[in-house]
């Protein structure tokens, strides 16, 4: 299956971004780990002609030889027999609660592409003792270049755009992406 855009979603604003792309005449797929029914925004995306992969997740990523581009994806539900291909991939998978970011005892990582994450190296500094102040882990997130391209080992992935609150330092670029894409 081929699309102009594939959104790896789960985070807030994934379907909003998808609908914006559809309204500009682009074809778009949204892969979303969540299983909740009655989600108005995602349902509206589907009704507007988007291809919604609900309750599915990216299983495998194929890169170009030099690693600078994503060639295709496979999902868990469709299996390795079906390749999903797009010109541009958008990572809008949210933060820890929606599994856009994962952590173990001493590191924070982005589980689908292994994109570069900015986080505090000393795990004892991830939280503050005061619950009601902003926590350091709330500023962890993806680093990217000026065009919101994801980086992997410091190198740009040309056709992977980072969107939403998965970005580091509390940034959220959904609104500006809706205008610029």
């Amino acid at each position, binding site marked *: 299956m081929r699309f102009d855009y594939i959104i790896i979603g789960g985070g807030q604003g994934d379907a909003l971004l998808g609908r914006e792309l559809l309204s500009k005449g682009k074809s778009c797929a949204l892969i979303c780990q969540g299983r909740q029914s009655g989600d108005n925004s995602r349902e509206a995306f589907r009704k507007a002609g988007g291809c919604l992969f609900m309750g599915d997740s990216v299983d495998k990523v194929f890169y170009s030889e030099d690693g600078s581009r994503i060639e295709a994806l496979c999902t868990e539900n469709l299996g390795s027999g079906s390749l999903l291909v797009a010109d541009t991939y958008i990572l809008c998978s949210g*933060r*820890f*609660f929606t*599994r856009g970011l*994962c*952590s*173990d*005892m*001493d590191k924070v990582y982005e589980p689908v592409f292994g994109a570069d994450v900015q986080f505090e190296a000393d*795990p*004892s500094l*991830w*939280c503050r*003792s*005061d*619950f*009601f102040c902003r*926590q350091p*882990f*709330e500023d962890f997130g993806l680093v990217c270049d000026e065009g919101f391209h994801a980086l992997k080992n410091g190198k740009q992935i040309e056709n992977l755009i980072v969107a939403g609150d998965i970005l580091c330092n509390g940034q959220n670029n959904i609104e500006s992406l809706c205008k610029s894409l």
Partner: protein
Amino acid sequence: MKDYDVIVIGGGITGAGVARDCAIRGLRTLLVERADISEGASGRNHGLLHSGARYAVNDSESARECIKENLILRRVAAHCIEQTEGLFISLPEDDPAYRDNFVEQCGKAGIRTQVLSPAQALALEPNINPELTGAVKVPDAAVDPFRLVSANILDARLHGADILTRCEVLDLIKENVTVMGVKIKDMSTGEIRKIHSHYVINAAGIWGAHIARMAGVEISMLPSKGALLVFGHRVCNMVINRCRKPGNADILVPGEVVSVIGTTSDKVPFEQCDRMSVSRAEVELLLNEGAKLVPSLRNTRIIRAYAGVRPLVSDDSDPSGRSVSRGIVLLDHSSRDGVRGFISITGGKLTSYRLMAEMTADLVCKKLSIDKPCRTAELPLPGSDNAKTKCSSLVMKAAEKREGSEVNRMSFEGKGNELVCECEMVGRAEIEYAVKELGVRTLDDLRRRTRVGMGPCQSSCCLDKAAMVLAEILIAEKLSSESGAGELAAALKKEFLQERWTGIVPVCWGEQMAQAEYLRNKYGKCDSTI
């Protein structure tokens, strides 16, 4: 005439047990606690009812005490105990000779054992380390320490004792060499008053050293920190111990819907005892050692870390203070220090609290020339009296599981059956009961009495509702100076969230970080309104 025969200082399991025993024997009894009941080490342990097997090799006296008390508590505190049984497992690196000696010593202490092959042990507990070389089954059990303290407090009250929580002892009233009572400050109102008694009993755990100093006597105590981790579900149904010389993180206890691994043992300064926290290094140690008992712990969500302080007492016969007494320490300060009217009870274990209370009450009765025998080995605690109950709903059945026959005193009519905490199935009726009968004033008190917020969601789902229900009840019962339920609920919530956060910080990674983010998003930015 004195106000009371005895004033017991400390609302942990020891103080609660002493107050109950004294009240049952007809003594006019007051218990004073500076915070809430079971706020110290009594609420910060494994929740293990020792069979005594752990002490069989090194401390036969404690082993015999434990098995005797274990069997008594199974009868008189049945509703606080889950009869899980326990396994002592041997791993390839453990000395097989230890196990043989262990079984022999258990036998001498009167602890029944059953030696199991690895296959037999795995059939009983499929999640234990499959590399085990053998196991021994012993009569360990899980006990809810909060409920045990609460039931003792309740029964003390039912026998006429007065209970004052949130009252700090500022000083002891002394005349020459006799302690005559206490000077206390009500922490809620700021009021200071003096209360007189024939005897003051120091059952303040690690803070007992401070109380003793007020009487002009010295108890050399060594605060020993024990850190523990709570996992998000039950990974085993029996208590799992390591069959070796007791060490760090070698006991895993299933408790209600979670599992607890512990503990460490580190000397800490007295200044730290009021604000215990667990470090990442301690978490790693507990996790690494715990995974040797049950490997799946590595992939199980840790929901909380906490620590208690053991009140270890230096042996009086050793002036260097290095030799520590692990058993029950009952100090008659009249014969020891020449100070009359003052007794300290410390050391011991959760499992031996009843015996500690019996020994203390025996001494007080002897001093007051009262000839009343101890009855706590026969009299069931409220909730364990086998009274018939009629529980139709799930909420009622859950309340019965926690409070036993006390469920008969809860009102499930109308709103009473309303579910508040889904993880632990706590309903409004149980909360009402906890406020009226068990002295609950804050959400943290409520957690200790009913387990609200202690399940896998750690209050992230039920907090709004629990806060509002508690606020409504406190206002209806005229137990709060606030008049608006919304404002009171917000204040209750804020205090509770901050306390819970302390336990989350050391284990904030993986699944728990996702939960922490959710908790912050839901409650972290709206601390003034509900």
